């Protein structure tokens, strides 16, 4: 447990010192919302229909940006070798990286939601509070797969370019269920109106956290 926290702490300290990842992720999410706004011609009806999708596109794209940096940072100065040399189980390294990535992605997600509420005039508390668990569950599924694949992508010839290609087809269930759930919330319904999506999202999280933790050791070896 201590080992996991050591990795999480290290990542958070690095991020707090530079703040580069955070700023770029947030800016990117903001810009996506702005671009969508232009693309939809500021029409209110379309925006109402498209807002959950927009939210999650902004969220996913910004998240991918952050994830692709996650292992690129470790690769610089070969920090990853140092981490592998410590007597730590590989799945603990995965857990540590995953938790820190989840924290980043989750915070960016919440801030994106805030911007969203601000720009599109949603009710503040009644929108934000039910969206928090959705963003959290979405982040877990997204990051579980993303951490594994970013460790993989960084060692290939295509590097960061490969990450979205690997990730998008896999995370379709997360996106679909999260969009559905957010749609319910933004329409002013209860989250439980789409309980099958909720179940899907939770089961995705459980399945992929386990599967990715198990397979991680094959990806990280001798890289």
């Amino acid at each position: 447990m201590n080992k996991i926290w050591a990795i999480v702490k290290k990542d958070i300290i690095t991020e707090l010192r530079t703040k580069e990842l955070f700023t770029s992720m947030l800016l990117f999410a903001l810009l996506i919302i702005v671009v969508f706004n232009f693309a939809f011609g500021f029409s209110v009806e379309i925006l109402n229909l498209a807002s959950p999708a927009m939210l999650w596109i902004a969220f996913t794209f910004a998240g991918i940006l952050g994830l692709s940096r996650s292992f690129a940072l470790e690769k610089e100065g070969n920090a990853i070798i140092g981490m592998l040399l410590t007597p730590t189980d590989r799945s603990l390294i995965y857990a540590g990286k995953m938790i820190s990535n989840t924290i980043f992605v989750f915070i960016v997600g919440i801030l994106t939601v805030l911007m969203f509420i601000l720009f599109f005039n949603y009710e503040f508390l009644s929108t934000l509070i039910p969206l928090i668990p959705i963003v959290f569950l979405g982040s877990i599924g997204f990051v579980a797969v993303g951490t594994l694949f970013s460790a993989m992508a960084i060692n290939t010839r295509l590097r960061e370019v490969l990450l979205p290609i690997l990730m998008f087809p896999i995370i379709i269930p997360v996106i679909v269920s999260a969009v559905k759930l957010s749609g319910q919330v933004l329409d002013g319904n209860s989250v439980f109106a789409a309980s099958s999506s909720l179940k899907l999202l939770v089961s995705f999280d459980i399945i992929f956290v386990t599967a990715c933790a198990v397979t991680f050791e094959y990806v990280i070896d001798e890289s």
Partner: protein
Amino acid sequence: MMRRILFILAFIGIIASLYAAFIYAPTEPQMGHIQRIFYFHMGTVWVATVAFIIVFIASIMYLWKGTRKWDILAYCSAELGVLFLTLTIITGSVWAKPIWGTWWTWDPQLTTTFILWILYIVYLVLRSSAGNDTKKAKYAAVFAIIAFIDLPLVYLSVRVMRGISPVVFGPGGGGIAPEMMDALLINMAACSLLFIVLLLERIDLERMKDTIARLKLSEY
């Protein structure tokens, strides 16, 4: 010798399946001749399914045992799976155009098939992009396993998204004429034989590549 026999069997099988699909099977009363493409559609989708299951099993075996032969099996099977699934999608579209009036709809089955297709193309891209052999094999195996686990969830999620749960039966899903069933089975058998022949040839090719790489290395 075995190989030669399999090859001949596959050849005969394909001829027989053409005969069965075009001449032996009766014309479907509602859809007419276009329905005959369905025999090939089913044959190829069956082979693609088997191929991807082989990829999944071979990938697990590779991660477990770490021997090259499992990796070769997974790779070759994935390649053929993509080939056969492409044929499935093409034949399906050709069938759907006159029957459904559109080349493509986003119903759960089609969407899942499409994503399946994308996933294994990504698998091939990953392989071609991942440097040396062991790394390539490991990454590909991990991706194949994750992708395979993902598929049922994709299917569920597409159903959830549409808010409907239509079950698309093939034409004649109800009472299928016995000759049609025969034609279908002959087609599936022929496609399977073809798949086995191609897979064996492809594995040989990959082994030869290995041999050449070894020979080149030993020259220096």
